[in-house]
Every structure is written in structure tokens, then in C-alpha cells.
């Protein structure tokens, strides 16, 4: 960066350097995003490979066990296509590892995740595809709501650090953020569902209604989803709030906040445009670490409410050792979380002009 020193800056040079800076900046941001994209692609590849390795590392022969179980469930010999599919996913003693890996990748490219043992002969891909919208709806909205709520409360507590509000709310939130999700869900279900009878006790929609994009059905989805959503937000916002509270306290001590106050700006502007705006940045870098926990917890919440998402699917699969479904859910959840992280990173790039050189 060149320094224009002295009092007389030539006006003619005004337009030139600006263009250069802008272009350079754009390239820098772009480079950062490309690097992050590369990282997430490798991460996705690792998850896919992990999904390949895990069954092959397990004691015994999962592939044979699954085929055995499938034949017992269906009461007949498996069609050759299903046999090949299962062996491709869970191990084929006749092929070497590299051949198996190639077959596996080929199958994934065709969304062939095998067939469910419990729901034979429904393909895993279909089961997962049915559950995914429910989970995306529930977990997606609650994650965003918890993030927004936690961040806003964190600013409030951090700005009033040391006041009675902060002294009460912060330890309380520390407690809330330490409570297991599913336990909160159980309590909520017991109190609001069982004792008060305000909410339905299980499911994602009124079973008497047909699944359709109609007002009655949407209303029932909202009615059934309210309690699970509330419990997830309740359990998840504390973590965001504590992080934001401490970052706000630290940021309020920064010179630029002091200067903003010295400038006589309104307290709201100082708080949001100067303190909170900067304190928020680490929230996005911490997104990756927090998201895994939120998703895991939300999956357990689905189980408590028998919500028809993939968490409940995973639960049923674990109970009955439905390995194809387990692995399908794992793969899908992982890829979705990686995608969410990529989005959070993009938001970060947009929020912070000093895009970091190292990712």
C-alpha cells in the first residue's frame, strides 16, 4: 500500500488508485472464498470416505450380516441388484479396496444408498428424502432463531455488563446452555403437552390430514412443530448468548467504541454499529463448532417428539440396527452441516472487510 504523504495530494491521481484497491480487494475476497470452498470439498470427500471406511473397519462382515437380515426380513433371496448395492456400500470380499471404493463412489453419484432393513424394500435415499424437509424446517429455522435471539441478548447483557440484568441473566444462561436438549424436550412435553395439554404429544402433523400444501395442513404443522422448535431454541440460544456477551464486553473496551462515545453518537448507534457489529464477527467463525452440537441436539429432540425428521429416522435405525439407514443419515447430515458452514463463511466474508489471509 502506498502512502500519500504531505499536504498536497494530487487530485488527478484520485481515480486511479481507488480502482486498483477495489479490484485487489475483490480478488482477495474471492480467493478466500475459493479456498474455503476447496476446504469444504475436501471435508465432504473425507465424510464420504469415512462413510466408506467405517463399516469395513468394523468387526465381522457387516455386508453379510445385512444381507442375512434382509433375507430374513423379506423371507426370500435378494434380487441381484440389491445384493450388489449392499456390497458396494458395506464391503465386498471379492473386490480389492480400490475397486470397492470406485464402486461405492459410483453408487453415491446415483444416490444409491442401499435399502432399509426395517422398511424393506424402501430405498434409503427415499426414506432420507422424506425426513429431510421436516428436519430442515425444524432445525434450520430454530438454529437461525436461536442464533439471532442469543446474539441480541448477548449484546444486551454485554452492554450492561455488571448490572443486575447481566448478573442474573448470564449465570442463568450458563445453566440453560448446560442442560441436555432432549431433557428440556422431555420436560416441555411433560409440562406443556401432558399436564397443560396445550400441544400435541407426538408427531409432526395431524395424522388425519393428508400431506398437502393447504392451510389446514400448514396450520397443523405449525401446531405440532411449535413445542419442539421452542425447546431447541431454548436449549441452543444460551451458547450463542454467552459468546456474544463476552465478545461485547471485550469490544466495549476497544478504543473505537470509546471514540464513538466521544463523538456524541446516540447510545443505540454506538452499541450496534460500533460494538455489536464488531463483536458479531467471532460468532460466525464459531459457527462451525457450535452447529454440530446444535444439529446433534436437535436430532435427539425429534426423538422425544416422534417428529418425522431424520433424527427420528436415525433413532429407529439405531434401535433395529438398520445400518444402511444409519449411514445414509450420517452422510446427509454431515453434508448439510458442511454446506451451512460454507454459507456462514460467506456471510463472514461479507461482514468483515479485513478478510483473513489464512483460512
Amino acid at each position, binding site marked *: 500500500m502506498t502512502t500519500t504523504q504531505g499536504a498536497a495530494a494530487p487530485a488527478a491521481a484520485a481515480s486511479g488508485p481507488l480502482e486498483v484497491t477495489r479490484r485487489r480487494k475483490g480478488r482477495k475476497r474471492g480467493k478466500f472464498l475459493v479456498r474455503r470452498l476447496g476446504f469444504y470439498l475436501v471435508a465432504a470427500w473425507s465424510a464420504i470416505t469415512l462413510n466408506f471406511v467405517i463399516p469395513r473397519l468394523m468387526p465381522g462382515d457387516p455386508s453379510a450380516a445385512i444381507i442375512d437380515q434382509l433375507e430374513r426380513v423379506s423371507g426370500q433371496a435378494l434380487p441381484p441388484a440389491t445384493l450388489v448395492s449392499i456390497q458396494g456400500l458395506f464391503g465386498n470380499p471379492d473386490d480389492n479396496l480400490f475397486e470397492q471404493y470406485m464402486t461405492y463412489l459410483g453408487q453415491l453419484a446415483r444416490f444409491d444408498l442401499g435399502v432399509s432393513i426395517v422398511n424393506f424394500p424402501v430405498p434409503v435415499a427415499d426414506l432420507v428424502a422424506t425426513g429431510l424437509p421436516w428436519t430442515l424446517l425444524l432445525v434450520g429455522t430454530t438454529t437461525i432463531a436461536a442464533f439471532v435471539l442469543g446474539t441480541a441478548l448477548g449484546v444486551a447483557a454485554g452492554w450492561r455488563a455488571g448490572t443486575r440484568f447481566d448478573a442474573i441473566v448470564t449465570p442463568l444462561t450458563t445453566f440453560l446452555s448446560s442442560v441436555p436438549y432432549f431433557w428440556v424436550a422431555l420436560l416441555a412435553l411433560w409440562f406443556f403437552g401432558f399436564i397443560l395439554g396445550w400441544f400435541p404429544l407426538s408427531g409432526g402433523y395431524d395424522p388425519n390430514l393428508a400431506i398437502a400444501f393447504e392451510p389446514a395442513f400448514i396450520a397443523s404443522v405449525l401446531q405440532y412443530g411449535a413445542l419442539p422448535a421452542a425447546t431447541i431454541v431454548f436449549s441452543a440460544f444460551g451458547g450463542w448468548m454467552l459468546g456474544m456477551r463476552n465478545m461485547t464486553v471485550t469490544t466495549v473496551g476497544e478504543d473505537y467504541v470509546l471514540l464513538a462515545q466521544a463523538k456524541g453518537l446516540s447510545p443505540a448507534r454506538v452499541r450496534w454499529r460500533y460494538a455489536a457489529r464488531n463483536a458479531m464477527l467471532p460468532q460466525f467463525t464459531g459457527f462451525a463448532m457450535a452447529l454440530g452440537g446444535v444439529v446433534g441436539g436437535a436430532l435427539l429432540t425429534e*426423538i422425544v417428539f416422534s417428529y418425522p425428521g431424520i433424527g427420528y429416522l436415525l433413532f429407529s435405525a439405531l434401535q433395529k440396527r438398520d445400518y444402511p439407514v444409519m449411514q445414509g443419515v450420517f452422510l446427509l447430515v454431515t453434508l448439510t452441516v458442511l454446506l451451512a458452514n460454507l454459507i456462514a463463511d460467506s456471510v463472514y466474508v461479507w461482514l468483515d472487510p479485513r478478510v483473513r489471509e489464512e483460512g
Partner: protein
Amino acid sequence: MKYDLFGNGKVTFGVVVLGFFVLLAILGPWFTSTVLGLDARANDISAISSPPSAAHPLGTTQFGQDVLAQVVEGARGSMFVGFLGAIVGTVISILVGVPAGYFGGTTGNALNFLTNLFLVMPVLPLIFVLAGYLQGTGLVMIAFIIGVFGWAGGARTLRAQAMSVSNRDFVQAMRMLGESNRRLIFTEVMPHLYGWIASMFLGGLIGAVMAEAGLAFLGVSDSSAISWGTMIQAAQQQSAVLRGLWWWFVPPGLCIALVGTAAALINFGVDELANPKLRSGSRRVAKRTAAIRRTALAPEGV
């Protein structure tokens, strides 16, 4: 430092609560069986699903088991997984994080990449799947799985800290003098990280307790073991919620939350000690300031 640490109310509260649960895990089962005469596994057929009473202070389960005895026994199971999982996780994060920060270069980048990979992976679903294959294995195995997949956050912190310590002049100077890397790491870098390692261990402890509870809730656990997680799972499976048996599932969850809060408060207090800016935001400082302001303004008003 010691005085300061315990002068902090948050830390004191956390240490007391955590200490209580550690004692409960070690001595509790002996206490309940000899002094209170309760057995976590015995089925009292005369009291099935009974609410808290004199004979059973926290009531009984669907199977006539005493909830208090189970909570105490469960403390042992949960704390065992918590400690073992935290030890495994902390050891791995030291092994990955410290060299990543100390060496930099290709080694550092490779280790950092590995850390970031595990950081973005949703660990809980991964543990679910792994544990699903290993159903029926004991608490030791579960603790190991939790530790093996839960180290990334700690390693990231340690890497950053190790990096800043390694770049300090005294370490650089000793490097140039030809001091061996191993000796430098153990005698110069590591001592600066003990505080961070302790804080990571606490984080790992609560993480492992929660993960175990989650796994048990999914039904992935040693069927003969009793932990807070298995208690909640049993309650859920027997539809305790829909039958109003709140005394069955409330106590174990409360215990998990208390252990978690204790660990979080200790970390919170340690943060305040390490970061002066945070300390200025504490209630105590605000109160003292207000007190001085009041006494200062009083004579002015006259």
C-alpha cells in the same frame, strides 16, 4: 493467583459443585447402600412408580427401583465416562494442537487441516453411527469414542496458544542455541499452556457427560450400566412423560445440567481472570464503582 481464583464467586461455586459430584461418584454408592440401605438395582415390588416418599426420597421407577440410589449410581457412570472421555480428548488435542502451533510449516499446516476437518464435522451424528456398530459395548469404549472425536476445538485453542508462545523471544533464542525441540516443548512451551489445558479438560468433561447421555438416550449404551443418560432413556422408553412420572427423569437431567454449569462457570471465571476487559464487566467491579460514586457525590450535594 490462588487467592484471586477463589475470590471469584463463579469459580468457587463451580469448584464446589463439581467437587460434590466427584465425591458423589466416588463415595455415593457406598453411602446409599450402607447408610440409607438403598440399592439401585433392587426392585421394590411394593412400590412401583411411586412418587417421592419417606422410604424412597426421590420415588421409584416403573420397575420399583429407587431413583435416588440410581441417581447416585448414575453419577459414577456419567462421571466415569466424563473423565475418561475428557482425558482421551485432551491428550489427543495436546498431541495435535501443540506441535501444530510449535512447528508451523508443512507439519503445522497438515495438523491444522486435520483439526479443521474434525471441527466442521458434526461429531455427534458420527459418534452415533460408530457407536451403533459397537452396540452393547461398555462405558470405556463409549468414553474412548467420545474422546477420539471430540478433541478438535481444544486442539485449535492449543495451536493458537502454542504458536504465540513459540514465537516469543526466549523460545526463539533457545531454538537458535540448538536446544532440542522436544525439550523446548516440554520445558518452555507446555508450562504456558497448563491453564488452557485445564480449561479444555473441563469443557471436555461436560461434553463427554452430555454425549454419553445423548448416546444412552439413543439406546447406545452398556445395558447393565447405570448412568444419568440410561436413566432418562429408560424413563423415555417406559413413557414416563405420558404417565406423569416426573421424578424419574427430572433428577438425572438436573444433575447433568449442574455439572455442566459448574464446568462452564469455572471456565467463565478463568476467562475473567485472564482477560482484564472481561473483569471490568463483572458485577463486583460495578458495585464497587457505584459505592465510591455514591460516597463521592454525597458531600457535593450539600
